[in-house]
């Protein structure tokens, strides 16, 4: 329990630090501090309202605390271009990013773990000599380039998948849920997920493989052999169970990290997620929206770091159960 609190505090502090950095980063951007928050296109009333809400007429340190207080209430200002609250816009696109990230990570990790364990078992064979460099290459390729190649091959050339977006024009749905469960949505989702999964599978695969190789040399695996257990029991119950620990942690971290990385994938596939939103906001200098999108990504990252810590504590008895003597 003490550990959980400790990890929570740690990650919360990190998030606070990120928020602070972000605040000053946006204030120190070229231009007047007002420019960072107030759009000249707003009418005088609206401008005045913003000025008060964010205390932009006060000293910097006061502004900082007002900013934090606003954040805690989920208030991030108005988007310059969409003229809507940033929070609303973010919550609209967040599900798209979460679905994209989670489904590709699940595919990548299931495949990676199985293939990694299999490659460990195949060590020294020609398959290993071909597969490991090939996997390294997928790790080395820019995500968006993988996307471009797949898009060109499978969408433009073969015509199997739509070339971008999250739904076909002209379709209407009664609710967001219905939309996301529709075949059309999944059809649009497939290629970005495939791309992301292809890019992401390398880490769990290589991690699982090297963990397996390491664990198979552990004394307790030899002991399991001496006990006469079946090869299956030795590999699955003892070796893989131990080798999996860091991979599960990596999965949670991966959610946070690839949310950030989605920026490019979402752009390639015009996927209406938070990463693409960030890119658009930055390119049109929509400061409130950019700041909000960035914070949202940082928040997911911090949250997933915390989840990774928790998983590690739960899964490894050496951490969760103290020494008793």
């Amino acid at each position, binding site marked *: 329990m003490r550990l959980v609190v400790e990890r929570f505090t740690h990650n919360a502090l990190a998030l606070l630090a990120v928020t602070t950095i972000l605040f000053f980063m946006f204030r120190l951007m070229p231009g007047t501090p007002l420019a960072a928050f107030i759009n000249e296109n707003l009418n005088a009333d609206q401008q005045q309202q913003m000025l008060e809400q964010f205390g932009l007429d006060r000293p910097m340190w006061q502004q900082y605390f007002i900013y934090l207080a606003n954040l805690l209430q989920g208030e991030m200002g108005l988007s310059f271009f969409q003229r809507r609250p940033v929070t609303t816009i973010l919550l609209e696109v967040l599900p798209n990013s979460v679905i994209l990230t989670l489904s590709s990570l699940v595919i990548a990790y299931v495949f990676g773990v199985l293939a990694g364990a299999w490659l460990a078992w195949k060590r020294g064979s020609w398959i290993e000599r071909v597969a490991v460099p090939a996997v*390294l290459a997928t*790790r080395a390729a820019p995500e968006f380039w993988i996307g471009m190649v797949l898009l060109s091959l499978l969408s433009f050339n073969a015509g199997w998948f739509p070339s971008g977006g999250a739904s076909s024009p002209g379709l209407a749905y009664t609710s967001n849920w219905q939309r996301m469960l529709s075949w059309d949505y999944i059809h649009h989702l497939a290629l970005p997920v495939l791309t992301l999964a292809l890019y992401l599978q390398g880490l769990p695969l290589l991690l699982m493989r090297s963990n397996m190789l390491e664990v198979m040399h552990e004394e307790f695996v030899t002991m399991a052999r001496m006990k006469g257990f079946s090869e299956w029991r030795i590999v699955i119950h003892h070796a893989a169970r131990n080798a999996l620990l860091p991979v599960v942690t990596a999965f949670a971290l991966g959610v946070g990290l690839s949310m950030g*990385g989605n*920026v490019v994938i979402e752009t390639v596939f015009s996927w209406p997620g938070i990463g693409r939103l*960030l890119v658009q906001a930055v390119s049109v200098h929509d400061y409130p929206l950019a700041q909000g999108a960035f914070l949202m990504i940082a928040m997911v*990252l911090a949250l997933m770091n915390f989840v990774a810590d928790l998983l590690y504590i739960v899964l490894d008895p050496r951490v969760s159960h103290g020494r008793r003597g």
Partner: protein
Amino acid sequence: MAGVAETATPTVLQRIASMPLRDPFAFVGLSIYVIFALIALLADVLAPMPPLEILFTSTGKLAANLPPSLDYPFGTTNLGRDIYAQLIHGTRSALAVGLSAAIVVSSVGTVVGLVAGYFGGRIDSLLMRIADMALSLPFLPFVIVLTGFLGASTSNIVLAVALLLWPNSARVIRSQVLTVRERTYVEAARVTGASSWRILFVHVAPNILPLSFVYAAIAIGWAIITEASVSFLGFGDSESVSWGYMLQDAFSSQALSRGQYAWFVPPGICIILIVVAGFFISRGYEEVFMPRLRGR
């Protein structure tokens, strides 16, 4: 005592020097670096055509979207520019970004790691807190925001990459310092009354060098990928032709739907090669310096 200490230094350097010969992976990695370095140096010779020059056919029409031919090995862009020339000249900006980021990342990481690991105490925890903070910033979004607002220049990209990547190397180097400082020759130097800084740079640092190289090699790849991503998103340096610029150009000019693979596949392959070279080299050093992993 000095004799004891000095024996440690040359063996480490010798091991670094002889490593490529012993490890075929590292050899391949280094060769890739050398080849790209040569291409960058000889870019004007290999591709005399300026990469942004707009070309015309003999009949005076714009030489747009030409398929690969002897004259234009990778064809031309939709604006009639030679893709081969762009690829060759792109090597320069890739290496410029990669090397400068690598130098900054590994030197900051090394100095911070050395100081934190060797002196410990408050300096250590302060530096490590800062490292934690840098690591909790989402990588690509941070680079985008920074370059998007500060201006799209190569040096801003290098700055952003350096700001976020130094903690990785600093942490690992710190923990390596913690073990090295307990070794007998360091003890010996301490007993003879050598100053802290002297011990740090004469006795500890040489043992850390290989790790700095590993992180430099990794940073080269990261920086190049980052530059490509940022350029692809449209926040790149508009002055320089880089691989990321080429990919962005190809993407936004519908090269994908036209199936102009010769336009967008080669830059990706080049990036992969350089990044993989970094993996290979770091793997090679790992095998020589972290024997626990050797032979497994």
